[in-house]
């Protein structure tokens, strides 16, 4: 069975649309998202609605956690809107509708599922939490230190926006990269396509897809999303 793992959509609807189409063409029978669905981009409502409508299972990312915290506290929201670094999260919190916020709030921190080839653990950052990163330099002791229990057959994550597929110890580690905000200098979005066949070793590959970035840039400017440089999406970088 082929499963597409998406992550870090960052409210980029044209990229999500293109990713879903690319996944369908590649034969994916199911789509799972490893968090950071919103934040940064101009389409939080559109992204959440499409994922809701398509029944995409997802985990909570660090951005969703921040956005939900801001939505719940008007004072914090007002303060955040004035700070450059948090203005984008505040904008997202103000833009999202009640139904979309409820759906985000119900997201789990991790998904454990067996597609017939061993346990797959889907998290956003690392098993330690949404804010921790897993990079391609990950070592077996590094992974073991982060795991609370027995190692899963496959570990799927995002957060770093750097895509990779590596076997670390006995675990196949998949970082999906980013659908909506690539930062490795390649402006095409990325996601992982995993193949789970019973009785065989699980495998995965990173797929990259192009999307109409001009629509995104147009909407970033038109909707005046604060704290985001549209050029980052065009170049495939993230300036801090």
């Amino acid at each position, binding site marked *: 069975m082929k499963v597409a793992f998406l992550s870090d959509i960052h409210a980029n609807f044209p990229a999500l649309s293109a990713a879903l189409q690319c996944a369908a063409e590649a034969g994916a029978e199911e789509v799972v998202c490893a968090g950071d669905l919103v934040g940064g981009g101009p389409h939080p409502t*559109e992204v959440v609605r499409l994922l809701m409508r398509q029944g995409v299972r997802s985990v909570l990312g660090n951005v969703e956690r921040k956005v939900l915290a801001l939505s719940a506290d008007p004072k914090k929201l007002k303060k955040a809107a004035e700070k450059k670094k948090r203005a984008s999260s505040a904008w997202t919190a103000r833009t999202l509708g009640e139904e979309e916020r409820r759906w985000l709030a119900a997201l789990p921190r991790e998904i454990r599922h067996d597609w017939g080839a061993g346990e797959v653990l889907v998290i956003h950052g690392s098993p330690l939490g949404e804010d921790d990163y897993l990079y391609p330099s990950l070592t077996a002791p590094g992974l073991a230190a982060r795991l609370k229990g027995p190692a899963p057959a496959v570990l799927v994550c995002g957060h770093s926006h750097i895509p990779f597929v590596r076997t670390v110890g006995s675990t196949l580690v998949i970082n999906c990269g980013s659908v909506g905000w690539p930062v490795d200098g390649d402006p095409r979005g990325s996601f992982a396509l995993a193949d789970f066949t019973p009785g065989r070793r699980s495998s995965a590959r990173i797929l990259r897809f192009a999307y109409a970035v001009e629509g995104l840039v147009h909407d970033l400017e038109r909707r005046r999303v604060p704290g985001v440089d549209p050029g980052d999406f065009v170049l495939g970088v993230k300036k801090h």
Partner: protein
Amino acid sequence: MDAPETVARLRWSEGQTPARVLQALRRAGYGARTLGRSRARDLFLDSQDGLLAKVGARLALSLREPGALWRFEPAGGPVEEFPAGPLPEGWPLRAGAESLPAGAQAALADAPLFPVASLNLAVQEAEVTAPDGSRLSLTFETLRGAGPPHTGPEVALAARLLTLRLVQGEAAEVGHLSVYLRDHIGLATEMGDRLALALAALGRTEPGGHAPPELRVAGSDTLATMARKVLSQQLLKIRANAEGTLLDLDPEFLHDMRVATRRLRSALRLLGPALGARRAESLRTELGWLAGLLGEVRDLDVFIAGLHGQAARLGEAGRIAERLERELQARRVPALEALQGALRSRRYEVLIRRTAALALSPVPRRRAGPAAMTASEAAPLYLAKAHKRVVRQGRAAVPSGEAPALHRLRILFKRLRYASEFFAPALGARLEPLIRAMVRFQDCLGEHQDAVVAAQRIEALARELAARGDLPVDSMLDLGGLIQVQREIGLARRDKLAGLWAKFDRPAVKRCLAAPCAEAPFELKPSPAGRRTGSP
């Protein structure tokens, strides 16, 4: 956060039929239902100066089943439409006399309406309910042909336009739906509405020729860029008024075309070095030909319009005004024919093409020289120079009150005003009170000059009629009375000028023009809404 737009437009293709689009929307969680189909022929109307186009609104007389409808499309919000009654013959149509939609009446403020273009189209209406309960109308239009407003063949169109409008609920839903249609269903975003598409197919400009945002001068524009933008703005105005002038629909078409020609010439003189001095000068000379022809007719129009008011001051002797008007109308006919001949000529066509070519010419990559200066850097230099000339002439002309000196002052003043208006968008609102004061002063100078010219004209006409033996003695005396009225007007304006000049010839004005960031020398008062600025 800005208020979200309540209207969005997309293009749909043959493969993306309304039924398929609605089906895709249902799959995405929207409630969608079709409302009906119709064939229509819409005649778009607007005022001479494009009051509706200026605010992004459209008014159409729509011929659909079962009958004619007034259809008003505001820039945002739902469409207003109701059955149209029988219309009077001919143009213009008085907005106040017809029961137009309320939105159109408010925007037009009793301005006469002229046809802009006609559109032949097929329409399919649908309504969509967003997941949050907001209601949106979807209008799928197949544009088949566009017709010019007066004469000429219909141009075939093959455009398909989908317009989303918020009917009820959250305005953000228009944005969500348009993003979904664009990025998930693959419809292309369309900036212009159906009239904009029709006008583009017909090679025409928007009514009134208002400058689109991309042609607005910014402080960071180099002089080379600014000069091209100013040329494009004035060319738009000329083109928007050319047909109305040619068909003599309303004197305001000719007036606005003349003003745009004057501004264009002024821009070529002022910003010529940033455009290529020789090319600009050659174009300015050629535009002088057009300006002369427009001026001939316009001066007669102004004279005739002025006569009515002045005749009232003469009581019974005012009868001569009717006679005079007949004579002037007779002279207007050949002047207008000469102008119409010019507007239909190849020379005019080439002139417009040359102006457009210069306006669209690439900006040279110069790192030094006047063309490389930014508009905000150049403004104080240019304005201070023009102001200095005005002050020198004004100090001599205003106390003397001599007509030729005041006429020269008027010309220099007009150059200063045009230069201020060209640079004003780059400098923010600071110049606005000063420009309004300039308009008042220039109006006064203009009325003085009109009175001087009118007296000369009446005198020349009287001599001509007397030589023909066509002027009875009592009429001659009446004409003398009319000349006296002109002299009184001239005298009154000269007296008023002294007061206005004292306000203008002040160090604060000089400081404002030499460094437009300094404190405004005039109190910033909003201009009365709907009032046309005074003289061109």
